[in-house]
């Protein structure tokens, strides 16, 4: 059936408002029948001006701001920021604090991967798996609440350490939770590798070869599913990852099934790490003192977020406020891989391919002023604010 509106090019818009998207983004898929022939993305609907906002706040206040960059991986943002600040200040958090930081990171990875499993299953129309994995995710959310008091923004970090401690009762709860989750995860691994209808939607769909992944700079589980051996936790261990190392999980197929398998196997790694951390938690202080004014300098701090490498660039001018905070989130690196792998697949596969990189919109939206030769503009904070007011009037 030929559409009557556009005889040559039939473009299906997904977003900014669409049931498949939990955050606003805009994608245009050119289709021929059901087959996608071209894909474009437009981001930037949830730009919040956080990097700029960070320059107006002190280092301590920024910690809380940065934690709110992402609602799913709030801990790693605060972690990357505080690791950077500590490096600038020339201090190091005590071992127990480092171990607790790693513990919360891994708990957060568990909750993020289980969340993703549910979302990806929902995009493929498998709501039962969605409901079950989100039910089990509550276990780890409850654990995070037990140890930090919060389900989402755990606020575990302070500059120079952590503000939460793990007592024996909490440790027991964590061990029990990990046992339950491991058992459930075994079931999910079985479902995603054996269920025929589900395999029909994931096997050989959205295949990204190693060369493509390497060229496009795919990172995190998305890259690892294509055989890219890249993980900050292994490559340059931070916090306690050198004492409690993580095994790299990779897969060679690069299709959606491989992304499911990599993430689920990473869950096992996290369970193992969490147990080990709880059992062998080093004793000692939780914080060291960090000066209010951070010495002048620049630093890059990298951590492995659930979605891949998270990079913070911090520049200090010696005052109590940062000169520049630059955040590069993993979703941004993976977008191009979606647009490349989408072509040639069915429209029905698009939601799953989109979800396959575990996209996060609000953390990667930025404002860019493009310097063209003719109409070059520079905007300061006040102009930008005014522009925003005018734009949305």
């Amino acid at each position, binding site marked *: *059936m030929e*559409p*009557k*509106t556009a005889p040559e090019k*039939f*473009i*299906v*818009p997904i977003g900014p408002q*669409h*049931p*498949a998207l939990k955050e606003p983004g805009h994608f245009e898929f050119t*289709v021929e029948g*059901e087959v996608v022939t071209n894909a474009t993305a437009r981001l930037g609907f949830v730009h919040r001006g956080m990097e700029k906002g960070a320059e107006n706040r002190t280092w301590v206040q920024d910690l809380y701001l940065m934690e709110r960059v992402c609602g799913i991986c709030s801990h790693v943002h605060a972690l990357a920021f505080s690791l950077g600040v500590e490096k600038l200040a020339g201090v190091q958090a005590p071992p127990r604090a480092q171990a607790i930081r790693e513990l919360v990171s891994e708990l957060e990875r568990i909750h993020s991967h289980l969340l993703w499993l549910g979302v990806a*299953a*929902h*995009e*493929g*129309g*498998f*709501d*039962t*798996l969605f*409901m*079950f994995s989100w*039910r089990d995710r509550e276990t780890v959310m409850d654990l995070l609440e037990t140890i930090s008091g919060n389900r989402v923004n755990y606020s575990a970090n302070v500059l120079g350490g952590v503000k939460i401690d793990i007592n024996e009762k909490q440790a027991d709860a964590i061990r029990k939770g990990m046992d339950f989750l491991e058992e459930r995860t075994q079931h999910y691994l079985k479902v995603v590798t054996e*269920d025929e*209808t*589900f395999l*029909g*939607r994931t096997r050989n769909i959205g295949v990204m070869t190693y060369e493509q992944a390497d060229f496009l700079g795919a990172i995190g589980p998305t890259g690892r599913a294509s055989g890219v051996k890249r993980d900050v936790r292994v490559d340059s261990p931070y916090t306690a990852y050198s004492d409690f190392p993580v095994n790299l999980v990779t897969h060679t197929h690069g299709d959606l099934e491989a992304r499911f398998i990599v993430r689920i196997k990473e869950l096992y790694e996290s369970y193992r790490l969490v147990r080990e951390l709880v059992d062998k938690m080093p004793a000692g202080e939780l914080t060291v003192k960090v000066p209010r004014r951070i010495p002048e300098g620049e630093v890059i701090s990298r951590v492995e977020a659930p979605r891949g490498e998270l990079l913070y660039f911090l520049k200090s001018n010696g005052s109590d406020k940062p000169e520049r905070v630059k955040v590069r989130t993993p979703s941004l690196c993976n977008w191009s891989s979606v647009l490349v792998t989408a072509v040639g697949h*069915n*429209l*029905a*596969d*698009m*939601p799953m391919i989109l979800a396959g990189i575990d996209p996060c919109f609000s953390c990667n939206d930025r404002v860019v002023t493009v310097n063209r030769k003719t109409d070059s503009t520079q905007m300061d904070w006040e102009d930008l604010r005014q522009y925003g007011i005018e734009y949305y009037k």
Partner: protein
Amino acid sequence: MNINFPPIVALLFFPGGAFLLFSGLVFEYIDRKLVARFQNRIGPRWFQPLADVVKLLAKEEIIPTGVMKGLFVALPVVALTAALTSALYVPLFGFKPVFSFQGDLIVTLYLLSMMTLCIGLAGANTEDRFSLIGATRALTQLFSYEAPFLLALLGPAIALRTWNISEINAGAGSGLWFIIAQPIGFVVALVGLMGKLELPPFDAPEAETEIVAGAFTEYSGRGFAIFKIGRDVELVIGLTLVASFYMGGFATPLDFLWKTLLLLLVTAALQSLFARLRIDQTVGMWWRVGVLMVLLQLVVIIVGQQLAPVIQPALQSLFGG
């Protein structure tokens, strides 16, 4: 039960008409509740489908620009009318059908297909891109499940040598149930019904994560409510047909209740077991597997019927001829 209702009563109140509309909502509730329980959710309260319909009926109906207005308004009504009309030929709630003649099976199946045709037209009528894709998919799906579904329902008809629904209903209960005699036909008929009603995993025509609500995307208020009721009515009639053909027919309302509800339980379980099939997978499945299986079944029935008088009465009872 052989009570004869005057046609006007049957059409407007009982067992068709108003009563059928409400039982459609009840069946929708049971379906939603069962799926929810299978998915470890709590599910809706008992009046939720009714509340949905009342709310939708009370809302403004937005007619988008670029549609043929008359068609846009008429399509849901036609779809519901066709579904309600088909109720006159089936043994609803175990009562004798109001109208009955040789070949009413085919008429009923046509009337049941009207819904999908209306959905296809409704989608093609608007300029919305999601609706267009939804309409294409709905019609593609129609061409894939319709033939096997029809063939599956023909199995009992051929075995009993009649094309009259009430005679099949009566005959189905006399011998061995067709669910045992013709298991393939039963599976195909039940899965075909799920395809007809666009239940998961055959919900590609309205896959919300891809094309929002498919052909219904532009529908709101009254039109959407009527489509929704029409589909509920079709759920009841479809379950009635499959249960009466394959599960020994109905003699009493109680028979009707437990047989259709058992079928509903099975469909709810199937709905929660699978991931959504892509439209190409749906078509492939029906034509590569469904049709071949039913054809095999038909061959067995016909050969059995030819051989039955010759060989032994046991075979005769097995195939009901």
